[in-house]
């Protein structure tokens, strides 16, 4: 079963409540991941409870802050600072705020992990989690061509491989 099925959407209002509930249940925080979705960012919280994994998904619209969970899980401070560095997402309530300088130096580009401007991005994978085996695979990332980008002039890499699968 796809792990995407277990992703629970949360809002700014109930994020801390949901995380506190998971903490009460003995879950440990594995990590957070962040994705530029074009109209903002999706932040995913990955928790483990014994051999189960639980995922929360928080959509952060552009310009709005993400609420830190570092008051509940102190270790989240590292990855929340990293998200702030790499994606430029403002994070409220960090227990230790590196001001966007945890992994980036002073002369580093701002928010380098965001998609380039001008790309129409839908990074979601509609129906991928529920697609039956053997069904045609949906495009995982739909990115329209950017005529001005240098990457557009580069031919796509060959996708063939040598040797077969066992």
């Amino acid at each position: 079963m796809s792990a995407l099925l277990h992703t629970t959407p949360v809002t700014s209002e109930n994020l801390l409540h949901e995380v506190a509930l998971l903490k009460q249940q003995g879950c440990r925080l594995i990590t957070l991941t962040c994705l530029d979705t074009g109209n903002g960012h999706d932040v995913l919280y990955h928790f483990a409870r014994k051999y189960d994994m639980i995922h929360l998904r928080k959509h952060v619209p552009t310009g709005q802050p993400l609420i830190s969970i570092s008051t509940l899980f102190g270790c989240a401070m590292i990855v929340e600072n990293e998200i702030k560095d790499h994606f430029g997402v403002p994070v409220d309530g960090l227990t230790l705020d590196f001001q966007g300088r945890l992994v980036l130096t002073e002369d580093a580009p701002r928010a380098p992990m965001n998609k380039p401007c001008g790309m129409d991005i839908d990074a979601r994978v509609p129906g991928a989690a529920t697609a039956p085996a053997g069904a045609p695979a949906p495009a995982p990332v739909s990115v329209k061509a950017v005529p001005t980008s240098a990457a557009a002039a580069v031919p796509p890499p060959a996708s063939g491989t040598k040797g077969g699968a066992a």
Partner: protein
Amino acid sequence: MSQRSIIPFGPQHPVFPEPIQLRLVLEDEKVVEALPAIGYVHRGLEKLAEQKDFLQDVYLIERICGICSFMHAMNYCQGIEQLLGLPVPDRARYLRVIWAEIHRMHSHLLFLGLLADSFGYENLFMQCMRCREDIVQVMEMTAGNRILLTTCCIGGVRKDIPANLIDQIHLALNRVCARLSPTTTRSRNA
């Protein structure tokens, strides 16, 4: 009145196993603050992975970490297979488990050895490295490489383990077991 000065310590320095910069704030000769800058090992692999296709990314992701490289490649392949609904042959799944377990053993032995070395227990470090060598040779025998196996691919594996190697793998594992058992007993003072 004491004079404050800042001395950059690192990012490259002989005492550091990995690059890091500590900005040491001194008042006269006394260090009153040490501000870390830890981003020197961040390589931006995520950004590079976005620019390559799924098949190329297997090689890239296998190089996230040299110690647990097979795990990264296997997890990535499993993720892509799940997204695409790709079936994986049973034999390929068994082979993945075998390589993953062999890789796990070498990773744990390396960790234990380096841990021992870090607090001066060099004898345990040498014992662990000796045991690990057998494991690494099994990886070389089955995959052709000692660390970066590069056997996992989307949809299965690239290589097979022929039946005539099974005995040699058993011999190597028995040798590891025979060497490791007294070592752990002595190290735990049991």
